C-alpha cells in the first residue's frame, strides 16, 4: 500500500510537532522514521493511523485522501509503544478482537476465528500462551501479541511505534531479524518509528531522518551514511566526531592545527561555500599512529596531538577513546596491541563530511 504525505503540519499549543512534512512511501517498502525524541516522528505515525489529525496537509493512502476516514475504517495495523494490550482479555481474545468486532456479515465463524488466531500465534512463535493474560507474560511476548493482534485484520500497512524500545538487547536482536523476515513473507508496507539509528539502518530499506518536526533526509541507509544532506544528519548518524574547520581554495583546514588539512578530493561531502565549516569524521575514518611507530615528536604540525584515554576490544577491532586537546574522539582501529591507555599518538582524519 503506497503512502503519500504532502505538506503535513501539526501544532500542539506552542510546540510545532510537524512542519510541512512531505514523504512518498512506495508499496511494500520498509521505512523507518528516525530522530531524537520530540522530532515529530510519533505524531507523523499517529496521523497516518488516524489517531491524530494534521492542521494542514494531506495524507493519501493508495491514492485516497484520508482526511475524512476515521481510524477504524482505515484497516491499518498499529503496534503501540507500550503495546496497549487489553488487560482483561487472554492473549487469544486480544488477537481475536479485530475479527470479533467486525459487522456480523463480515465476521468469520467461531471456528475460523480460532484457526486464524492460532495461525497468527504460530507465526509470532507463542502458540502456547493463548490462555494467558497480558500481565502474565514477558515484554518480548507482549510485543509479539501486539503484533499478532495488529496483523489479525490483515492490514496492507503496518505502523509500529518504537517497537523494540522497552526490550533488552538480546530479545531486540531476535525480534528485528524476525520482523524483517515477516516483511519479506507478507509483502506489506511497514513504517516504524525509532530513535535507535542502528535499528533503523538494520531494518529499513529507506530511512526518514527527522529533526524538530521536519524530515531532514529520506534515503536508503547507504546514501544516508555516505552523503548526509546536512550537518544534522551527518552528526546524528554514524557516531561522528564534530570538528570545526575552514574551507578555502578547495582545501579543508581543521581548526585544531594538529589535524592538518584535507584536499577537496579526499572529502566525502564538501561544503557548498568557502569559509567556516563543520566537519564530521566517523570512528573508522581516522588514521592512528602511536609512539614508537613513526616519526614526529611533540605537539603541533605533524607531531603527536592526542592521548589514548580508553581502549577496548570490539569484535576483532579495537575501540579507542582519544583525547584531542580536551575533545574526546571515538576511533575504531584494526588489530590489538600498542593502544594502551595513556599512550601519546598522532591522529589524522582520512576523510570527512563538511558543511558550511
Amino acid at each position, binding site marked *: 500500500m503506497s503512502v503519500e504525505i504532502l505538506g503535513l503540519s501539526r501544532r500542539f499549543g506552542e510546540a510545532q510537532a510537524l512542519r510541512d512534512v512531505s514523504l512518498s512511501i512506495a508499496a511494500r517498502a520498509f521505512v523507518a522514521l528516525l530522530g531524537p525524541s520530540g522530532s515529530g516522528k510519533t505524531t507523523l505515525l499517529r496521523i497516518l493511523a488516524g489517531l491524530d489529525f494534521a492542521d494542514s496537509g494531506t495524507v493519501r493512502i493508495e491514492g485516497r485522501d484520508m482526511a475524512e476516514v476515521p481510524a*477504524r475504517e482505515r484497516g491499518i495495523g498499529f503496534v503501540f509503544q507500550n503495546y496497549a494490550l487489553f488487560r482483561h482479555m487472554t492473549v487469544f481474545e486480544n488477537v481475536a478482537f479485530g475479527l470479533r*468486532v467486525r459487522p456480523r456479515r463480515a465476521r468469520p465463524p467461531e471456528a475460523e476465528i480460532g484457526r486464524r488466531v492460532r495461525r497468527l500465534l504460530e507465526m509470532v512463535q507463542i502458540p502456547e500462551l493463548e490462555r494467558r*493474560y497480558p500481565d502474565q507474560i514477558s515484554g518480548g511476548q507482549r510485543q509479539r501479541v501486539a503484533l499478532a493482534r495488529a496483523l*489479525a*485484520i490483515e492490514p496492507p500497512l503496518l505502523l509500529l511505534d518504537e517497537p523494540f524500545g522497552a526490550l533488552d538487547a538480546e530479545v531486540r536482536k531476535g525480534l528485528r531479524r524476525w520482523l524483517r523476515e515477516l516483511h519479506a513473507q507478507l509483502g506489506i508496507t511497514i513504517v516504524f518509528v525509532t530513535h535507535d539509528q542502528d535499528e533503523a539502518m538494520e531494518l529499513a530499506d529507506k530511512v526518514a531522518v527527522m529533526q524538530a518536526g521536519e524530515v531532514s533526509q529520506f534515503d536508503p541507509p547507504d546514501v544516508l551514511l555516505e552523503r548526509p544532506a546536512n550537518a544534522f544528519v551527518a552528526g546524528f548518524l554514524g557516531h561522528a566526531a564534530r570538528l570545526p574547520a575552514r574551507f578555502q581554495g578547495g582545501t579543508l583546514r581543521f581548526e585544531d592545527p594538529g589535524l592538518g588539512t584535507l584536499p577537496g578530493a579526499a572529502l566525502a561531502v564538501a561544503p557548498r561555500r568557502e569559509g567556516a565549516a563543520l566537519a564530521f569524521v566517523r570512528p573508522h575514518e581516522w588514521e592512528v599512529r602511536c609512539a614508537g611507530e613513526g616519526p614526529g615528536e611533540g605537539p603541533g604540525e605533524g607531531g603527536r596531538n592526542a592521548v589514548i584515554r580508553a581502549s577496548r576490544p570490539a569484535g576483532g577491532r579495537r575501540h579507542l577513546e582519544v583525547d584531542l586537546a580536551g575533545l574526546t574522539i571515538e576511533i575504531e582501529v584494526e588489530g590489538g596491541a600498542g593502544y594502551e591507555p595513556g599512550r601519546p599518538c598522532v591522529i589524522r582524519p582520512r576523510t570527512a563530511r563538511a558543511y558550511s
Partner: protein
Amino acid sequence: MRRPGGEPRVEVAAEAPWVRRLAILLAVLVLGLLLLLPLLAVATEALRRGWTPVVAAITDPDALAAIRLTLLIAAISVPVNTLGGLAAAWCIAKFDFPGRALLLALIELPFSVSPVISGLVWVLLFGAQGWLGPWLQERDIQIVFALPGLVLATIFVTFPFVARTLVPLMQEQGRSAEEAAATLGASGWQTFRRVTLPDIRWALLSGVLLCNARAMGEFGAVSVVSGHIRGETNTMPLHIEILYNEYQFVGAFAVAGLLALLALVTLAAKALLERSGDLARLRRPPA
C-alpha cells in the same frame, strides 16, 4: 562508606514496632468510638423494650410508606447517576475538549455546597414562588413537595460518587487501549463495552454502591424539598427525624436501625463482589 540516604530509611522502618502498635491501637479506638459505637447504640436503643415495638414501628403505615419512597428514590436516582457519571468520566478521561477542566470542577460542585442549598435550588426553580412555579401550576405539575423534587434533589447530591470514582482510574489507564481498539476496527460502542467497561467495572460498582448508600441516607437536600407530608413525601431519614422530635425514641431507633442495616447490606455487597472479582483473577491459569 555508607551510601548516603540509604541507611536512615532502613532505620526509620526498623525503629517502628512500638510506634506502629500505638498507631494501630489509636486507629482501632477512633474507629470503634466514632463508627461502631453509634451503630451499637442505635441497635440497643431500638431493642430496649424487645422486638414487639420495633416491629410495630416498622410496620406502621407511615413507616412503610417512607421505606417504599426511599427505595423508589434510590431506584431512580442511582441508575441515572450511574449513566451520567459514566458518561462524564468517559468524556473527561478519554477526550480533550474545551471546558474539560470546568466540567471536572462542576462534577464536584454537589460535594462542596451544603445539602440545604442543593435542596433550596429546586424550590427556587420549581416552587410556587419560584421561577417556573406559575408555569407549572397552570399545568398542574407538582415538582417540589412531591416525588420529582425528591428525586431531583437526591440525584444532584449523589451525582459526584460515580464520576469521581471513575475519573482518576480512567485517566491513569490512558487512551491507548481505546486507540488500539479503534485501529482494529471497533466502533465507539464496541470499544466502550468490550475494552473500557471491563477495565473499570470494579471501580464503577464501588461508585454505584456508595451512590446508593448516600441516595437512601440523604437528609438535608431532601428535607428542604419534601414538605414532610406523612405517608407521602417522607423518606426514611425524614421519618426518623419526625419520630425523634415526637419523643418516639424506640420507633426512631427502629427505623434508624433498618436504614443503617440497608447501608451495611450495600457495603457488604460491595465487599463480597470485590472479593469474587479478586478470586476470578486468582483463578486464572498460573503464570
